[in-house]
């Protein structure tokens, strides 16, 4: 999986809806996300807004699940973020808390008709 930029997809699901977002891609899933407010700080709640679309026709996925783990420590978060759907393939998840410094893996599980596709991005949190 690579972090990259890609053109907005056609159809209802449009990744250009999220300005100044980071991009991830794992074909056929194209995804952009944004952290509110950034940067992430230890113990401070934040939200993740995401738009995920299925290439090549820009269909919205059936479901997106966003979570986070500390792989080196073998645990996840102490809190379950709440989901708010904004539009096709577009949702915001409030209530993330990285309660320890170190490497956190933010995972996006995108459910398509072909199954689940996981996209991951790592954050090294120092403060």
């Amino acid at each position: 999986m690579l972090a990259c930029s890609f053109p907005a997809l056609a159809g209802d699901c449009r990744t250009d809806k999220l300005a100044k977002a980071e991009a991830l891609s794992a074909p056929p899933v194209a995804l952009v996300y944004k952290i509110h407010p950034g940067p992430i700080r230890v113990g401070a709640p934040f939200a993740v807004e995401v738009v995920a679309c299925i290439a090549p026709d820009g269909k919205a996925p059936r479901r997106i699940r966003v979570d986070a783990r500390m792989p080196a420590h073998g645990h996840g978060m102490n809190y379950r973020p709440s989901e708010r759907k904004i539009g096709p393939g577009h949702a915001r998840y409030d209530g993330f808390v990285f309660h320890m410094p170190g490497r956190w893996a933010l995972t996006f599980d995108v459910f398509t008709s072909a199954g689940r596709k996981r996209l991951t991005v790592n954050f090294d949190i120092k403060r």
Partner: protein
Amino acid sequence: MRLMPRLGAPVGAALVLAAGWSQAQSAVEFSATEKAAILLHGPWPVAMTPDPSNRVSGQSKAIAFGRALFSSRLLSADRKQSCASCHIANAGFSDGRPRSIGSARVDRNALALYNLRLNRWFGWAGQSDNLWAQSLRPILDTKELRATPQMIARRITGHPDFARRYLGLFGSRPATHPPETVLVNIAKALAAYQETIVSGPTPFDAFRDALARGDSAGIAAYPVPAKRGLKIFIGKGKCSICHFGPNFTNGEFHNIGVKHFVARSRVDKGRYGGIQQLRASRYNLLGPFNDDKTRSTAGFTKRVRLHPRNWGEFRVPSLRNLALTAPYMHDGSMASLSDVVRHYSELNEDRLHQDGERLLRALKLSKTESADLVVFLKTLSERR
């Protein structure tokens, strides 16, 4: 003898050099990464922000009323005990006992009350999400003050000074409020007082601030063993991962392999039980007594997860004023800081949950390293 003058100078120079070399060996330098990690533990104190769930938070009348209530025996059923019985100001707002004794012996050590205003969760298991709820818990607990809302309302009403203060603060006579409301309001005044219990600056803070401003004399004044201990704390000990930030805690809960059997057939559920109690409580931030109708601070309560790994997890306590608050751990099972360091040095990894924290490993510290870590930990306390 004739050789002495000739040898004198070089030998003297060699001695000076040797002394310099030895000093250089004992001097402790910090890398840029280590300096950044040290600076994260300050500045101290952290600015106070009133608690939006408590409408009297930060009010001077509430603080004074709360202080009076804190040492009042009217809050206990038998009128023999007060909050101050187990949270003694001269004992670091703890009581020096492994497990406190109210109307009966309780299961846990009395937590020190310093810097509570910075907490997200309260108590060893985080059973409360706000300080006023945590303050009324021991009043009602049958092993602690063993009172009832009716008893508290009656006694506050019948105490002219307390009734007058109550009226001045909450706008009505206690007799006109339901007993439960009186109890919650009393707890809010107690919380307002406890928010003012802030630990003072420590030798570590002086060192940290000297490091921040590049003050070499201030840096040099911090003892070398403390510097070595600090290096372990932020380095191989990985202590600062959980004992994070200016208050030396991440405010959460971890299983560090301390036994959680209270008796042979009884287990302290730790954070698992704490979350269950939190959710069941009428006094949590989602309940009717939160004065912040927007519930702006209730997000953690709404979203906290109950995991199997929460069994055996207990609060990561602040390390500020640590030297004043022995014994240590949720059950007071470690009498001294040396015992605590030995616990981490010789950690029994079999006691940790399989699905728990992989971070913890026996540190296997040498005697000198253990002693240095203790010296460092002692510099987190105020000079008295």
